[in-house]
């Protein structure tokens, strides 16, 4: 596979949008899917489908093997220590809700503190808000500076002996800031505070190595990683999965069910109640293969080239204001334009086939802090090229024409 021609692996690009080629710059929202992933899913339904882990007939055996193979592949890809540390969920949102609920239920009490940042996506705040409400806990927000970074000293200052968990993003989906995770985790380890990383934006772009990173929890959305909808991953250190109570109750996650009491299976089953997304899980192993075949470092280099080209080109445009200037940025450019609302930008860009997103991107706290109600966001995936950036910039000039600014 050649990264320059990788678009041809994605069927979505075989169409015109408003008569123009599709320029998809909305991958931070959800990525497109290569045909290997799409075909694996159909093919699985056509030839191997059955419920996993429950029946002993041939189809069930096949499906179960494929499903558990996929777990091994995820384990290897993110370099987790044990396969039991990989829990399949509905998405990063569910992964974080699982931890907030199970960890919060057991370990967070009145007056305890949850440390997070002003950069977080609602999915890494609202679940903690629920625990704050239930337990009378406190959420502390490490402030973001004008560059869109969270300074490590600010985090240090906010850690107290009441801090029960640190919940922090890997890459901001607004400023693109790549967080200094190893430093933060180092700090936390000193105080024996567990760290949850919202890896939703990190996983599609950066090399993952759980043993090296040494975080306690890492949340992933497969649909942003060229995988299918409706699937996420929670990586959690084995000791936590042993200690935490289960999250949802139902078929498969039990050991013994009596009228008076219920005991639970061991991980990962303990956290996988009900029928799982077998076809999605199996197809996701093709997404991992896609990434591995290209090489995540190659993907990252390619995306960074496009990103830097984009930032430079947008900087030269006087009407464009790029949000944030982190020294370490990944895959995302949020911007505003004088006199043109991001919503209008998105609509005008779409007329040229350019798909971006406008709004607060589920980061209202950050937008409030920045004093803007909405931004336009171009986000980059493996299929984007410098030509896409050129088309984006032309379309931006068209916005100015339409609005006569």
């Amino acid at each position: 596979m050649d990264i320059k021609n990788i678009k041809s692996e994605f069927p979505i690009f075989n169409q015109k949008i408003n008569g123009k080629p599709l320029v998809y710059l909305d991958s931070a929202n959800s990525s497109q899917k290569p045909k290997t992933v799409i075909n694996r899913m159909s093919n699985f339904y056509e030839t191997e489908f059955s419920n996993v882990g429950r029946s002993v007939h041939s189809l069930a055996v096949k499906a179960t093997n494929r499903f558990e193979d996929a777990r091994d592949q995820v384990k290897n890809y993110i370099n987790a220590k044990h396969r039991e540390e990989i829990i399949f969920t509905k998405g990063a949102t569910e992964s974080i809700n699982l931890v907030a609920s199970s960890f919060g239920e057991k370990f967070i009490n009145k007056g305890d503190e949850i440390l997070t940042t002003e950069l977080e996506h609602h999915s890494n705040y609202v679940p903690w808000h629920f625990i704050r409400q239930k337990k009378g806990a406190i959420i502390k927000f490490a402030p973001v500076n004008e560059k869109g970074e969270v300074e490590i000293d600010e985090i240090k200052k906010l850690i107290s002996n009441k801090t029960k968990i640190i919940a922090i993003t890997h890459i901001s989906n607004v400023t693109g800031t790549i967080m200094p995770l190893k430093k933060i985790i180092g700090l936390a380890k000193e105080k024996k505070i567990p760290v949850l990383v919202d890896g939703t934006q990190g996983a599609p772009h950066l090399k993952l190595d759980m043993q090296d990173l040494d975080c306690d929890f890492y949340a992933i959305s497969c649909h942003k990683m060229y995988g299918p909808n409706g699937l996420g991953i929670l990586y959690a250190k084995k000791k936590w999965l042993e200690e935490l109570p289960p999250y949802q109750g139902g078929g498969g996650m039990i050991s013994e069910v009596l009228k008076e009491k219920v005991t639970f299976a061991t991980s990962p089953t303990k956290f996988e109640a009900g029928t799982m997304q077998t076809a999605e899980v199996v197809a996701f192993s093709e997404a991992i293969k896609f990434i591995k075949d290209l090489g995540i470092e190659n993907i990252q280099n390619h995306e960074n080239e496009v990103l830097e080209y984009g930032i430079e080109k947008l900087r030269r445009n006087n009407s464009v204001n790029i949000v944030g200037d982190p020294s370490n940025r990944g895959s995302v450019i949020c911007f505003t334009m004088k006199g043109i609302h991001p919503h209008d930008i998105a609509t005008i860009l779409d007329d040229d086939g350019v798909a971006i997103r406008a709004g607060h991107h589920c980061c209202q706290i950050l937008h409030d802090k920045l004093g803007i109600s909405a931004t336009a966001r171009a986000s980059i995936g493996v299929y984007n090229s410098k030509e896409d950036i050129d088309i984006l910039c032309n379309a931006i000039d068209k916005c100015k024409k339409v609005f006569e600014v």
Partner: protein
Amino acid sequence: MELKELYQEIILDHAKNPRNKGKCNDYNHEAKAHNPLCGDKVHIYLNLGEDKNIKGLSFEGEGCAISLASASILTDILKGKDLNFTKKVTNDFLNMLKTKSKITLNSLSEDQVTTINSLSGVQEFPMRIKCATMVWHTFLSALEKKNN
């Protein structure tokens, strides 16, 4: 979908120079709304007289050209009008966007009909319909919400 249909001269004019911005005098009704998906906000102030006439009508808000123009046009056209009439125009407007029709109201001036119809281009942009309609829904709530 024609961009020019959406961003007509009239719309851009209202968006850039919104009429009736701020709090009108002696407002006795108000309501606000926001769209959590995009961050648009609108706040309607109105003075409903004893005689059921909308004596004052204004708005504050933030948002895209469509939402600002829609608020500006709404206040411009409904100010000074009779309560029932404003309800009828509002329903006709909301209906226009639902059914892809145009508005024809004898009691509005030709100019006003043209102005209000300038928003009909939104019909072809489903994700933008809420931008145009939110302020009209907010206006209806304001009618219900008397301050005390």
